[in-house]
């Protein structure tokens, strides 16, 4: 069994909880449907977004350099990081040089991907995640389980317990409003004490050198505005060529992510604030490897809306932690093997290939076809699970010969009904653990067809 299948099986042991998770996430998918339906031009917008991203990726180096020139002109400092380590080192150096020991952070999946928090904390810097969901999982010492709703796997009662334990709220508190207010008061102190703010980047605009950060809580704005030092970390794929392209992406992002018309805050940053410093760290970490591959390049179009997770029938029932990576779900299963193919070889198989992710994706990434392409890539490199390779070999051998195929079918149809149930439904029969096998007919279709031909 793959690691995903094992963790999914565990998650499903608590059936009511898995059903609750499925329904909670499905509810977001339905909100997305309603928001998207309000725009008659939805499919056209998806087309445009996909084409803009494909174009930007086709000249990524040029646009990145244009962005750098313009950002520097606006007074920002731009840093380049080849991988997670270099990214973490750069961020730490910026903070250490200025004696920063208290950092507030808004949501950034890139820094999760690079494991920045433990890197900084082990070097004596307090890192406080200020997005409510991120703060919840940080207090619980867990990774996020969803890229837009990091604590979607937690029930409000569990958050009440956690806050009671960590923030001293009254025991048994489970009212979302009161819990949020408690978190707000706690975070306000952290904001006021912070010496630096770190944010992610949703869109970096090549022609202006500015960038946009989307949040619903305004936490990025506080973090970037109160302390003098603002560090913004972005993957190389966040580039859009022109400011007017935002009109396409901002309309798609919030509708796809949460079913809102637009995020509560879409903040534009153009250079440092007066008297402050702005550092932009641009990270590759495996992305240019994907860029070089025709079959996987499109996965870099992702704007991290999470819609593919919300629609995925596997994600909803197995929970985000079952994927064992920062970005779970269909897009995560496409991205993870590019970083470590051997470690994440099970993920491209953790999909029924239903294709719902492909049709929900606002930038039209053909996700289920990329999962299929990854399976072929893994098999080519000898990384597909062993039993799959053996099964495919055996199946291919039998099916190549019409005679062998007919004999195998005949044997199954004649033998299975004769065998004792305990043998047919032994532990080796994974199909039969929860399901019955088909009732075996006496004759195949081809035998029936031949008989039919006779008068």
């Amino acid at each position, binding site marked *: 069994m793959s690691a995903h*299948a094992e963790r999914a099986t565990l998650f499903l042991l608590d059936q009511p909880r898995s059903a609750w998770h499925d329904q909670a996430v499905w509810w977001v998918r339905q909100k997305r449907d309603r928001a998207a339906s309000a725009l008659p031009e939805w499919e056209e917008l998806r087309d445009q977004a996909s084409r803009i991203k494909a174009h930007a990726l086709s000249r990524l180096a040029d646009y990145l350099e244009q962005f750098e020139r313009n950002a520097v002109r606006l007074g920002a400092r731009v840093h380049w990081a080849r991988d997670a380590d270099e990214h973490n080192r750069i961020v730490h150096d910026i903070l250490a040089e200025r004696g920063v020991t208290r950092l507030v952070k808004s949501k950034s999946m890139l820094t999760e991907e690079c494991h920045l928090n433990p890197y900084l904390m082990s070097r004596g810097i307090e890192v406080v995640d200020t997005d409510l969901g991120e703060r919840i999982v940080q207090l619980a010492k867990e990774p996020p389980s969803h890229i837009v709703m990091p604590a979607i796997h937690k029930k409000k009662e569990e958050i009440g317990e956690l806050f009671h334990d960590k923030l001293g709220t009254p025991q048994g508190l489970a009212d979302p409003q009161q819990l949020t207010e408690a978190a707000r008061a706690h975070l306000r102190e952290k904001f006021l004490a912070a010496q630096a703010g770190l944010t992610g980047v949703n869109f970096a605009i090549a022609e202006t050198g500015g960038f946009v950060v989307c949040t619903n809580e305004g936490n990025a704005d506080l973090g970037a505005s109160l302390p003098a030092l603002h560090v913004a970390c972005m993957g190389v794929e966040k580039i859009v060529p022109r400011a007017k392209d935002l009109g396409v992406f901002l309309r798609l992002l919030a509708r796809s992510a949460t079913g809102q018309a637009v995020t509560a805050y879409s903040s534009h940053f153009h250079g440092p604030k007066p008297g402050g410093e702005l550092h932009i760290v641009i990270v590759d970490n495996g992305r240019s490897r994907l860029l070089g591959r025709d079959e996987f390049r499109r996965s870099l179009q992702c704007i991290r809306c999470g819609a593919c997770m919300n629609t995925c029938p596997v994600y909803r029932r197995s929970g985000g932690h079952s994927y064992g990576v920062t970005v779970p779900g269909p897009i995560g299963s496409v991205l993870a093997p590019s970083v470590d193919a051997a470690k994440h070889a099970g993920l491209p198989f953790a999909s029924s*290939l239903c294709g719902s992710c492909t049709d*929900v994706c606002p930038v039209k990434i053909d996700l289920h076809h990329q999962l299929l392409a990854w399976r072929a890539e893994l098999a080519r490199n000898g990384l597909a699970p062993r039993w799959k390779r053996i099964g495919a070999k055996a199946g291919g051998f039998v099916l190549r010969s019409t005679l062998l195929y007919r004999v195998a079918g005949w044997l199954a149809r004649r033998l299975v009904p004769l065998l004792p149930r305990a043998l047919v439904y032994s532990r080796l029969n994974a199909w039969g653990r929860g399901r019955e096998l088909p009732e075996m007919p006496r004759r195949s279709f081809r035998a029936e067809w031949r008989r039919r031909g006779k008068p």
Partner: protein
Amino acid sequence: MEVALFVPCYVDQFYPRVGLATAELLERHGASVVFPEDQTCCGQPMANAGSLDDARPLAEKFLRVFGAYQYVVSPSGSCTSMVRNHYGPLLGERAAQMHGKVFELCEFLHDVLQVKPRGRFAARVGLHQSCHGLRELRLGTGSERILPARDKVQELLSGIEGLQLVQLQRSDECCGFGGAFAIDEEAISCRMGRDRIADHEAAGAEVITAGDMSCLMHLQGLIRRDRKQLRVLHLAELLAEAGARA
């Protein structure tokens, strides 16, 4: 019009009635049906396992067996999509030899023969939208897409008297079969299937029908294990039965 029947391997071996119903339906609407005996499998299980080298000989066999026919029809959206959309990586340019020739049954009735089956089937029916028919062949507008709703399968069913389609909570969620996924991710697969069945039950369906017997094999396996009363019927069986009753 001559039509070559492409019967998925597991239908040939385990669901002969589906193949017979498909032939009957095509003949009733004026096609003359042949069954090329050398066919086995389109190669999808191997391709989905990533083993393109094991799938390729089967794609080549498919070309040898079916290449000469003008129309190839299959009672499976998934196998049809394999040949139509996924032979490229296996055969390169030769994949084009089958372009415009391979059809899923409902698509063939609707688009090529342009017929509307008549008949009578008095029951509350739940239509399970098999994913590959819906999202790879575009037999209908999936719930994700913000486009005018149209559905070739429902149009075909609309000519059947007494048939009442039930309204599902989730109109086109995957049943969880997914080929080897049903084994690899057994727990999730069964959960997805049971959730689908519950949706059909809650909507009052007496029969679940679908364009792919693989989805129904999985759902029927769960229904029988749980000793439920729901009947499953492939669309070909349902339409053939309805026509025979009329």
